[in-house]
């Protein structure tokens, strides 16, 4: 499944580039679609007549009389809603395929499921409001579903008999669709991203414009239309269902209300339990060492999961602040260690290198030793140290006499001084191979490393480091060919400059993958 996802991602990288790749922006794209639904919905609300007698006629007016604005708005409203189901399902598929639902991510995964169900019910109440034959089918089907639960003492389906339907019930559905459900949805979305820092809810402008344009074209080519008006004295026979939202109803006709509930409940439970099946081994989380922390807050700024907070100093040191790690939120990615200025392998004050915030299972001292060992083991003419991460390409696959891989938790775990240290200790070049560009397993690892090397984010790579001997490249497990090609190109460049004195030139930063 992961390979299928990576192949899809590669295809989109070819056609959209890494910045606009929709697979990297499924969450923000869904937010954008919600905005379209909200804006178009507000416009439609101004014209819509919320009563049994007026609803259908007002929707017909929207569709046919004022087709050029309101009709387009209606179509956009429907198709953006449909698109949101696709992006949500793709989002789930991506996170599942990439293994980004376990461990510390359980909260985002579990809190995302109610969003899916709520969006579906929001769509259902939307179809209800049109009060055409499809609405009649949806209303009676929904009532049957609710009646099958041992909750209501009176039959809800009996509200949809000739002469029984009242405007009050209709207004209740209107209230649900226009206010109740959207409010709950916004709350759930807030909850869904609550454990993330630097949350971006807007997709890249180009992707947003492309999506809006595509939806607009579809709205003009195939405007959304209604069925015939609802008639409670006769049964609609053939229906043009929106299968994104209404697929449960035919299933209920074919099976029963009870079995449909059972299936929905079973799917929900299985999905909810996934983060713990099989149980994930606990990884030791980041640990703060106040003796080496000056409260600079760089780790606080860089943590992608809001696991680090800042508080007043407690150890009597002369610094104002200190950082605290919340173990329940820590992903053990090590990005904080990479951002700590104390994670400097050149420090020689103690036998054991210590830093302000460290990873117990892979401390900075061990990383320095591993770096020394890897460089010592290389014997070729052009020694290239490849530093990779656990979730991208396995850099050890390219080990040979002039190439050695050093695998960390995340590329963001690399302190810029470590690269400088490796060059000083005998590596002719350092190639960093993190996850694919814009698709870091820990969200910001490869982004932060880029910014540290270009001097946009502290701790920066010092100017005395020869940037020509440093290469940053993104790649996954299926990108071996392109990484080998990039490595060879890098090696050739390093060979040419090997004997030149170090100078400051622009950092190479590429992120192409195998197409």
């Amino acid at each position: 499944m992961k390979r299928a996802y990576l192949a899809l991602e590669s295809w989109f990288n070819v056609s959209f580039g890494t910045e606009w790749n929709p697979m990297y922006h499924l969450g923000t794209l869904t937010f954008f679609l919600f905005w379209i639904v909200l804006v178009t919905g507000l416009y439609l609300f101004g014209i819509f007549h919320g009563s049994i007698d007026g609803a259908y006629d007002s929707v017909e007016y929207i569709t046919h009389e004022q087709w050029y604005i309101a009709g387009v708005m209606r179509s956009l409203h429907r198709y953006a809603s449909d698109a949101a189901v696709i992006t949500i399902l793709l989002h789930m598929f991506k996170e599942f395929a990439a293994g980004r639902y376990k461990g510390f991510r359980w909260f985002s995964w579990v809190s995302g499921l109610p969003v899916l169900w709520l969006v579906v019910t929001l769509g259902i109440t939307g179809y209800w409001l049109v009060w055409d034959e499809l609405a009649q089918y949806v209303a009676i089907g929904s009532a049957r579903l609710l009646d099958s639960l041992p909750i209501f003492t009176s039959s809800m389906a009996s509200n949809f008999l000739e002469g029984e339907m009242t405007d009050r019930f209709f207004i209740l559905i209107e209230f649900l669709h226009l206010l109740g459900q959207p409010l709950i949805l916004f709350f759930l979305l807030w909850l869904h991203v609550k454990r993330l820092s630097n949350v971006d809810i807007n997709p890249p402008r180009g992707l947003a414009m492309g999506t809006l344009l595509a939806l607009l074209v579809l709205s003009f080519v195939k405007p959304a239309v209604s069925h015939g008006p609802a008639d409670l004295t006769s049964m609609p026979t053939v229906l043009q269902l929106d299968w994104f939202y209404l697929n449960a109803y035919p299933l209920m006709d074919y099976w029963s209300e009870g079995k449909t509930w059972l299936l929905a409940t079973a799917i929900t439970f299985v999905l909810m339990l996934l983060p713990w099946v099989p149980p994930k081994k606990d990884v030791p989380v980041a640990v703060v060492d106040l003796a080496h922390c000056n409260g600079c807050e760089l780790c606080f700024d860089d943590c992608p999961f809001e696991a680090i907070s800042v508080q007043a100093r407690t150890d009597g040191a002369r610094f104002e602040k200190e950082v605290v790690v919340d173990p329940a939120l820590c992903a053990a990615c090590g990005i904080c260690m990479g951002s700590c200025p104390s994670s400097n392998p050149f420090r020689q004050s103690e036998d054991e290198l210590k830093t302000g915030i460290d990873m117990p299972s892979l401390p900075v001292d061990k990383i320095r030793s591993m770096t020394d060992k890897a460089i010592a083991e290389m014997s070729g003419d052009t020694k290239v140290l490849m530093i990779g991460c656990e979730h991208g390409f396995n850099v050890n696959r390219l080990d040979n006499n002039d190439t050695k891989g050093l695998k960390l938790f995340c590329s963001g775990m690399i302190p810029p001084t470590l690269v400088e240290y490796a060059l000083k200790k005998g590596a002719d070049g350092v190639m960093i191979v993190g996850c694919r560009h814009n698709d870091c397993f820990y969200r910001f690892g490869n982004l932060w490393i880029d910014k540290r090397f270009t001097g946009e984010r502290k701790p920066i790579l010092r100017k005395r480091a020869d940037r020509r001997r440093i290469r940053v490249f993104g790649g996954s497990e299926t990108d071996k060919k392109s990484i080998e090609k990039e490595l060879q190109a890098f090696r050739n460049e390093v060979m040419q400059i090997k004997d030149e004195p170090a100078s400051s030139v622009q950092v190479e930063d590429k992120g192409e993958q195998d197409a």
Partner: protein
Amino acid sequence: MLNTDNKLFQYFLQAINYSFFMAVIWYFSSSPSYRQLEEGKSIITVSFAHAGEIKEPCHRRTQEELMALPPNMRAPMDCTRERSPIKIEISLDGNLVYSESAEAPGFYKDSGVDIYHAAEVSSGSHRLAIKMDDSVLKEGFDYTFEQDIELKPAQILLVDFLPGRGFLIK
């Protein structure tokens, strides 16, 4: 290998992707069509709310029983709250098509019962018969209804029940 450096070519590929995305929405937003009711079929819906009779007759308390109660609870009649279940049988052309015995809802089983049943039947002429029993104290069915009906294709025939009038077609 595709040449991704060519912006125009990349836009062309994007157009293909967007077209595919929109084609999926185009199709599944209204297709395939779903036939809910076969041709030549109609619906008979029986829907009403009715409370069954009290399950047990009231009992007049004896003097001893009254004295055993606190002064503020000495009501002369002792009536149970529980109501009889509603039994209903629907037959079409002499064939039983629906039968149900619905217990009164509520913690004390003292509320009215909602009956809602929609049956798919062939359109045309039929003999509809409905029987309902709402008391366990009396033998047999307390209400019966029988009528010839003519159903048009896709028609929903609604049968209601009103206390005092019995079953009626709306």
